[in-house]
């Protein structure tokens, strides 16, 4: 149950990180000593790939890369990129922000055509900053608005909705669609949590001239959520934005709510359905929604596209998915890989500079999840109208194709 981990060091990675801080980059030493790495010649097209292979995030992040692996299979089956064999340069970042500069150094030397990953807000910020001068095309799973700023990071392309877009949708759903007026916010104390909190507050103020009635921030390793939930309840919250990357925090919050029969409408940013949710009363789960992509939702009248159907089937079959199909399908990397393949075919080039020029002109590219457009300035590509809200309990419906897709909330 992880979309993005917003905090690399919270409950996890005590020692894991210790090793990673230095360890990672050091992988470079040996290869560098050998002189030429990664096959040397121009016969292969290299793709940089940043994924935690070790450490405690390794298992959790695996599903996130399933889509990209499927796209890679397609590329290879289709004869590679521009007829050149595709070579994957996999880098283990252990899910640690501190490891990113070293990983970045290694990527720079490998001169890949483009880079996939890393995943996780903090990891992404560290990685993109470290790669900023390298002119390597990169797309990560990180929602910070800054990451979609084409002036700031001209080579990073964001294929996920950013926190502002997410906050807009969440606020619209609670305030406009459901007509709730006592909106509360509860977020984790992290880069992601604090930035989406600020975004929701700003949007409520600017668009709806409203103010949240309660704002709660909890430490990522808080063992008891009761006080925060009690505060929300006391403020009479009827609509709640719940934003955390820690699944246990979500469960503990729901538990505190169940204990006092407090059932507000919740918009979360994570719609993975995990076993632990089974303990909660239906009334509570029925009010649990989450932001998601229009392409991954269905209604009674509207089926997802055939492409989505096909992808979901393949995701479900892939061994790495491990029951986290929702994470796998919402991941940006499948769309990113296909988009890169298309751009490379069109420009007939593997030169980052030429690819960048082409990417900056992408308009209404139809990804499986949403439409994507970029300009030189705006690298936050997801079309606003393709961000929507889904229901959690629909994970149990047959139309969800094994719990991967979600029913779109009424009115969205």
């Amino acid at each position: 149950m992880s979309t993005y981990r917003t905090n690399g060091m919270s409950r996890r990675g005590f020692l894991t990180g210790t090793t990673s801080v230095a360890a990672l980059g050091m992988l470079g030493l040996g290869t560098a000593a050998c002189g030429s790495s990664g096959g040397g010649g121009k016969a292969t097209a290299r793709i940089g790939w940043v994924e935690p292979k070790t450490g405690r995030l390794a298992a959790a992040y695996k599903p996130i890369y399933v889509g990209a692996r499927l796209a890679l299979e397609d590329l290879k089956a289709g004869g590679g990129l521009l007829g050149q064999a595709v070579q994957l340069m996999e880098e283990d970042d252990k899910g640690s922000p501190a490891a990113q500069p070293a990983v970045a150094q290694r990527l720079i030397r490998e001169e890949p055509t483009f880079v996939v990953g890393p995943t996780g807000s903090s990891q992404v910020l560290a990685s993109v900053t470290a790669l900023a001068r390298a002119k390597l095309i990169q797309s990560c799973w990180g929602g910070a608005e800054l990451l979609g700023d084409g002036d700031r990071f001209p080579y990073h392309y964001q294929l996920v909705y950013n926190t502002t877009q997410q906050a807009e949708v969440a606020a619209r759903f609670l305030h406009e669609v459901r007509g709730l007026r006592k909106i509360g916010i509860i977020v984790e104390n992290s880069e992601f949590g604090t930035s989406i909190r600020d975004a929701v507050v700003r949007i409520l103020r600017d668009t709806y001239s409203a103010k949240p009635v309660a704002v709660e921030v909890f430490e990522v390793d808080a063992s008891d959520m009761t006080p925060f939930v009690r505060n929300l309840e006391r403020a009479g919250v009827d609509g709640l934005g719940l934003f955390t990357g820690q699944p246990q925090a979500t469960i503990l919050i729901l538990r505190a709510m169940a204990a006092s029969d407090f059932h507000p409408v919740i918009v979360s940013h994570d719609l993975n359905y995990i076993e632990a949710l089974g303990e909660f009363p239906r009334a509570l789960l029925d009010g649990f929604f989450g932001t998601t992509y229009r392409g991954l939702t269905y209604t009674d009248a509207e089926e997802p596209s055939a492409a989505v159907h096909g992808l979901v089937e393949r995701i479900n079959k892939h061994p790495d998915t491990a029951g986290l199909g929702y994470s796998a399908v919402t991941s940006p990397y499948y769309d990113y890989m296909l988009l890169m393949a298309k751009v490379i075919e069109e420009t007939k080039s593997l030169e980052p500079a030429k690819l960048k020029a082409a990417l900056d002109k992408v308009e209404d590219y139809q990804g499986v999840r949403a439409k994507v457009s970029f300009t030189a300035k705006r690298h936050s590509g997801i079309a606003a109208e393709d961000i929507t809200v889904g229901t959690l309990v629909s994970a149990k419906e047959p139309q969800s194709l094994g719990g991967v897709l979600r029913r779109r909330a009424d009115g969205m």
Partner: protein
Amino acid sequence: MIADILVAGLVFGSLYGLVAVGFNILHRPTNVVNFAQGELIMIGAMLMAATPIGGLPWGIAAACVMAVVAIVTLAEERVAVTPVLRRSSHAVGWVITTLAFSLLLAEAAGRLWTDQPSTVAPPWPLSMRVEEVLGVRFSSYQVAVVVIAVAVVALLDVLDRSRLGTALRAVAADRDGARLRGIDPAALTRRSFLLGGALAGLTGVLAAPLLLASVTMGLGLLIKGFAALAVGGIGDNRGVLVAGWVLGVIEAAGAVFASPGSQSVVLFAAMLLILLIRPNGLRGLAVQRHV
């Protein structure tokens, strides 16, 4: 409000206290503070949540978990503690080896289980359902956790007064001297690790319904356990349990009254303050040695 803080403080404080009691048991014969304690507890909770053991009747399941974790802890003693102490009893190599063992446990857990948190139902007839008595809201399971923590400490007190306890004190004071008096420090160390491991397993079992079992739960408990240990006084079981409660209450109060960023600062400041006033722990039992 105050009642809520006290309930949460006592319940989670009991867990922190139990973690610290585990440190104590392992520390006494070896002078080692076990950095792997958090991961041992995690293993206990995960065994309950994610293996067939969890399907057994609660009592049997808990006993199995305690046995398994005790064996893992004994393995730690064999590979990570005794070899280091044998080579040099004053070296600090154990910091690294217990950390390394903790890394091994975490890696193994990451390999076995995903990071999905799992819930564990409390044993019948206890439940997590919140009751309200005289305006205080708590569940029967929360009461049970506090009672078990107190019982564990009381039991250890009894054990402490037995011959085993005396022998342990002798070993703690002077490992070589104890040997001369016919006490086998190695056997005692093994027994302590089995006991400490069983307690870690029990702590995991107890924590699972409250904190959710997940492969990431170890670090938080380790750190809070450290804090309870420092405040309560190394070697003082009653002291660390009380310290756990104090810290639990401060933490719960911090969640209500302090901003999130300042919570750990509040906790740290409280810890420092207590330590400065009572440098040998809350009850100040530590013996001062002289020339």
